[in-house]
């Protein structure tokens, strides 16, 4: 059974600081997703990572994937308050038809 674990589950940080959210998964995966969710809102797709060594960047967020280690990271550079949200990683297996989500990381950036 595929399991997805994120850590930390809660992160409070100062503006301007850098930090990394980790996502570990238990079996071979075809692709990994990072989503953002604001309170009371739906999921916004941030990144789709398809292959080992994939790195994608958008603004202050950068995601990477190491399929051998079954690990993805979401790195935040020089955090700003607008990045406060819950971030989910999710993994799917092509032979299956569902996406398995981690529990999410609640990110609170203090001004």
């Amino acid at each position, binding site marked *: 059974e595929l399991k997805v674990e994120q850590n930390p589950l809660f992160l409070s940080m100062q503006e301007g600081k850098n930090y990394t959210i980790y996502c570990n998964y238990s079996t071979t995966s075809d692709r990994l997703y990072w989503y953002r969710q604001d309170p009371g809102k739906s*999921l916004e797709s941030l990144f789709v990572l398809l292959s080992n060594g994939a790195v994608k960047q958008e603004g202050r967020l950068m995601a990477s994937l190491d399929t051998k280690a079954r690990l993805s990271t979401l790195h935040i550079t020089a955090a700003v308050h607008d990045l406060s949200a819950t971030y*989910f990683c999710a993994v799917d297996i092509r032979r299956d038809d*569902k996406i398995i*989500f981690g529990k999410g990381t609640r990110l609170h950036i203090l001004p």
Partner: protein
Amino acid sequence: GAGVSQSPRYKVAKRGQDVALRCDPISGHVSLFWYQQALGQGPEFLTYFQNEAQLDKSGLPSDRFFAERPEGSVSTLKIQRTQQEDSAVYLCASSLDISSEQYFGPGTRLTVT
């Protein structure tokens, strides 16, 4: 273009009532997924359709949950005899096909009192 829409956005039901939640996928999207998101948790898979065929319903928590997509577009998730533990946000997602990225709707927040 229009994204995935869901209705109602909020639903309050008394325990024991039946509810029906609607999902309108992106036009032309073959695959449709339902997820349940409890407070403070990640979404959990409920069921999946490819066109009108329900190919996986392994995530439905009990036989009180039923989903259909009779014409391969709009889908309805029905919950019979609602219980308090059914309180959650129900998210619908659609994708062009099974191998494509899923796009999520705004969700329906169900509160059972």
